[in-house]
């Protein structure tokens, strides 16, 4: 039973292509992610990592290939897009919290507006999530009054409030001062341990080695190599993978 659940493929990307004008940012990218799996995407800057995960919740539109999220095909159909988005959380490099709302309002907005959750229930859930990310005392502050690490933890809580099945992370620690990186990675690791399906773009190799089930290496819009952390750090196949790893490690 549980074997069955974990082997279910919750994200299927088949030959996904994406152009910005003339420029091809994604070239036949294929990847299958099982439920509860943690996949880390690495690669040089400009290789298409962000574009790839942003296609999965339609922040970017792919022009060829298929994307199926939790059995829902990603098409132009607005209902499909909305359904996929409500099952998929996303955490951005720049946090993108809503500066005019308090921390609590940031977290409760979508559950109240989209899930039609009752206000009190949304509050309770939000406080529980703030406890989980370790900053319940910041509930009534505005994002501008928090440190970067705290803001990113609020952003994670905001996504989790929609009870997503999948979480997408786009370089969640790249905009943080070094001393705040760990507090965010800790939250992400805890999340991974609870069985969340996660797709994480990051340069944090320690996190990748410890938490990832698989690592994907992208270069120039292509998925070059996919494998376990062990595979990557001991016998990567491609020259470019080795070169990249040698530069970053």
């Amino acid at each position, binding site marked *: 039973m549980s074997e069955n659940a974990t082997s279910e493929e919750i994200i299927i990307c088949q030959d996904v292509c994406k152009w910005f004008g003339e420029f091809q940012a994604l070239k036949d990218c294929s990847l299958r992610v099982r439920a509860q799996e943690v996949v880390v995407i690495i690669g040089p800057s400009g290789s298409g990592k962000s574009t790839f995960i942003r296609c999965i919740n339609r*922040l970017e539109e792919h022009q060829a290939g298929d994307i199926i999220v939790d059995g829902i095909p990603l098409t132009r159909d607005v209902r499909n897009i909305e359904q996929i988005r409500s099952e998929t959380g996303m955490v*951005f490099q720049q946090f*993108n919290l809503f500066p005019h709302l308090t921390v609590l309002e940031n977290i409760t*907005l979508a559950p109240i507006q*989209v899930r039609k959750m009752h206000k009190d229930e949304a509050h309770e859930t939000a406080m529980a999530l703030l406890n989980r990310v370790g900053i319940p005392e910041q509930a009534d502050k505005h994002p501008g009054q928090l440190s970067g690490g705290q803001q990113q933890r609020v952003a994670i809580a905001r*996504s989790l409030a*929609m009870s997503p099945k999948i979480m997408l992370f786009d370089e969640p620690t790249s905009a943080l001062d070094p001393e705040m990186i760990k507090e965010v990675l800790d939250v992400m690791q805890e999340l991974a341990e609870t069985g969340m399906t996660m797709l994480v773009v990051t340069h944090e190799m320690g996190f990748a080695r410890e938490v990832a089930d698989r690592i994907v290496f992208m270069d120039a819009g292509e998925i070059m190599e996919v494998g376990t952390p062990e595979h990557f750090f001991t016998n990567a196949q491609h020259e470019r993978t080795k070169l990249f790893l040698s530069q970053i490690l």
Partner: protein
Amino acid sequence: MTTAADTSLDRSVMPPSERRTLLGWMRRNLFSDLLNSALTVVAAAVVFLVALLLLRWALTTAQWGVIPANFNLIMRGQYPAEEAWRLWLALYLLGGVIGLMWRLISGKFSTAALIVFLIPLALREVPLFSWMTRFHLLVVAGAGAGAFYLGAYLPIQRSVRAAVYVLLGYLVVMLVILRGYSGDAGPMPTVTTILWGGLLLSLLLAFFGITLSFPLGVALALGRQSKLPAIRIISVTYIEFIRGVPLISLLFMGQVMLQLFLPDGFPLVDRVLRALVAIILFSAAYTAENVRGGLQSISRGQYEAAQALGLSTYRTTMHIILPQALRAVIPVLVGQFISLFKDTTLVALVGLFDLLGIARTITANPDWLGTQQEVFVVVALLFWIFSYTMSYASRRIEQRLGVGER
């Protein structure tokens, strides 16, 4: 040991003490060097001279008798004296509405609330006013305070939205009270709008011009950003057309051309309403451009975060984009609204008797020949009071909303 260290630390943290004396301030700001000192002396001389001449005129030459003699005209134009109680009734309600809105929006009785509350009480000290007027002003203040306190017991959820509904309700009720509903006789006989005048008309044109052009302007600003080409083109065409035309020409068009756009046999729309429509259409285009500035200041990340959470375009606009965009342009919008208030004087040129129109009739009256200076000074003063109040209020709002942002 520790205490010594603490005190030395304390001292180093303290800023160097500033001299707060008047002399010190003057030395630093007005007489810092030779050129600055010379400019200060010259400027002071000019200001002094102008003030002296004005004061001499005000206290000796000026014939102030024209103001009390025409006081009712200046305040309400030809609005019949026997129906003037309806104006007071509308003001009572306004006091109550402001008190209630204050409760719904802020919930606290702050200094600003106290100032607003004190305005009618301060007005009672104007020496011109009769005891009846003073009594009315007392009721207005009482209605404000009463509504604020009783508002706490109303079964309404505190929110800006509720306050907006209260305001919209008031607009309708006020119009019914001023205009009347019972024909020639009855409890509230009709007072045609052409009789409305003076300060009453100026304030009404500005008030309705602002409140009605605002939503239209916001809609146009959003329309200009729309993904649908038809909506975008209509919005852009409208905005660019209106912005290329002076208000006065719109006012004339409203008087002579509105009929062309209405179906045959449509009853003649009254002239004040035509002027108001022109003002609203005009102001909306400028509101749209100002709001667009605010919309452009919102980063892509805000849209993306909202989308990623599954918020629809409509909800994203209402909850995320507009609140931030409008906040960013409050000062510009208030500036525009102040201009609008002053621009309402143009209706005098199409034959309406707003504050300026009334001033022109008074000074043209043979009984009051040669009193132009006095009348126009008072008109200017009235405009200044309301304009300054608006700009002061906007600065307060900015300060309050600025807290905790970004």
